[in-house]
């Protein structure tokens, strides 16, 4: 396969291309990008910059900051539940936050889970790009009728007394789960708490780490 000298982000393709879909797709996408650039619609340098941003700037570390603050600051938590887009804005985690972010709170009685059965809607600004499983047929098909079975696939078992609420993201509203603060974390700093907040705990397919599990 030819090395692509125009696109520095393609370098990592070479080791995993097997002459099948990957190399075919690399060529196909390159052809499309070339046409769009020649037409004057896109600037390849901006494409590079976008990729870099999605690889390095946005991610679940942002949501973890939000959750840790909600665990630490009751007034912030109230504001977050009231209007998450507005509450998150002053944290300065991103330049801007979309205006349809909704935070849903887990309690001992209720566990929330987020899905997009129709495509892949996901709160990019606070969690980054969704993992493959979130966009996969098994998750999208089963989350709405067998959420406890889905949780079992993640190794999570909830108490039988905990009801499950599934949010299907069928419009432009986006959801983030506010998981329950683990026991044994009294007096912890927001930084230390944020290390307990996993991506999956903010989707509702996981639980936060316990104090002993923090890296």
């Amino acid at each position, binding site marked *: 396969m030819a090395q692509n000298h125009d*696109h520095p*982000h393609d*370098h*990592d*393709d070479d080791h995993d291309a097997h002459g099948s*879909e990957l190399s075919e797709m*690399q060529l196909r*996408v390159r*052809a*499309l990008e*070339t*046409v*769009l650039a*020649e037409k*004057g*619609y*896109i*600037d390849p340098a*901006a*494409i590079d*910059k*976008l*990729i870099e*941003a*999605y690889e390095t700037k*946005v991610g679940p570390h942002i949501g973890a900051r939000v959750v840790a603050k909600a665990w630490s600051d009751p007034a912030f938590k109230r504001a977050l539940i009231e209007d998450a887009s507005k509450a998150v804005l002053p944290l300065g985690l*991103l*330049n*801007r936050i*979309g*205006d*349809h972010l*909704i935070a849903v709170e887990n309690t001992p009685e209720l566990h929330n889970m987020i*899905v997009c*059965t*129709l*495509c892949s809607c996901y709160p990019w*600004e606070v969690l980054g790009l969704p*993992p*493959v499983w979130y966009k*996969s*047929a*098994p998750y*999208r*098909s089963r*989350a*709405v*009728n*067998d959420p406890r079975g889905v949780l079992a*696939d*993640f190794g999570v078992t909830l108490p039988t007394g*905990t*009801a499950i*609420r*599934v949010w*299907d*993201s*069928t*419009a432009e*509203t986006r959801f983030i789960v506010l998981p329950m603060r683990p026991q044994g974390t009294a007096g912890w700093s927001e930084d230390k708490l944020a290390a307990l907040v996993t991506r999956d705990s903010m989707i509702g397919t996981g639980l936060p780490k316990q104090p002993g599990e923090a890296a």
Partner: protein
Amino acid sequence: MDSIHDMGGMHGFGKVEPEPNEPVFHSGWEGRVLALNRAMAYTGATNIDQSRAAIEALPPDVYLTSSYYKKWALGLEARVVKYGLAGANEIKAGHASQPGKAVARKLSVADVPNSLTRGSFARPAPAPARFQPGDRVRTKNIHPATHTRLPRYARDKVGVVEALRGCHVFPDAVVLGKGEDPQWLYTVLFEGRELWGDDAEPSLKVSIEAFEPYLEPA
């Protein structure tokens, strides 16, 4: 459209298989496809609803056997051709043979930091909301052959309006070329039993985000 993308409640797809330490992209072209989609949306020549509609219109076998970003690539190719932004022959050749159409704007490197956030889809309300929290509603039994955001499992079902989410661009209208046609958006909550029958887990509740035209009083 009632195609394979509308997966809620289907059987047979197996277990969810999370990948430990999953990278953001599994191959360089995936990042480029994502960024090309974002950059083309930025021009104003295409939009998110057209993007979803193009992916849903892929043949079901192609949809099921293509990776996520391959679907994005195929959808973008289809849209570029459908909306006259490039010819299929140009994409096949990998070079433009005609000048591009005029677009509203072009994403530059300097614009990128401010383009990481989704746009706002809220619009001024053309009329008061028809429903209020607590109202019982029945979703309509609709089967449009074009794009809709009312999933099949939640059609002709009775639920309760839990919240108003403002007035938003209506995807079903956008893809028909009818403009944004803003509609009220509601969170509508269903009992698991209403959706899945007596075998549903007793505690299960599922909500959808439903545009007002999908709903009627129950």
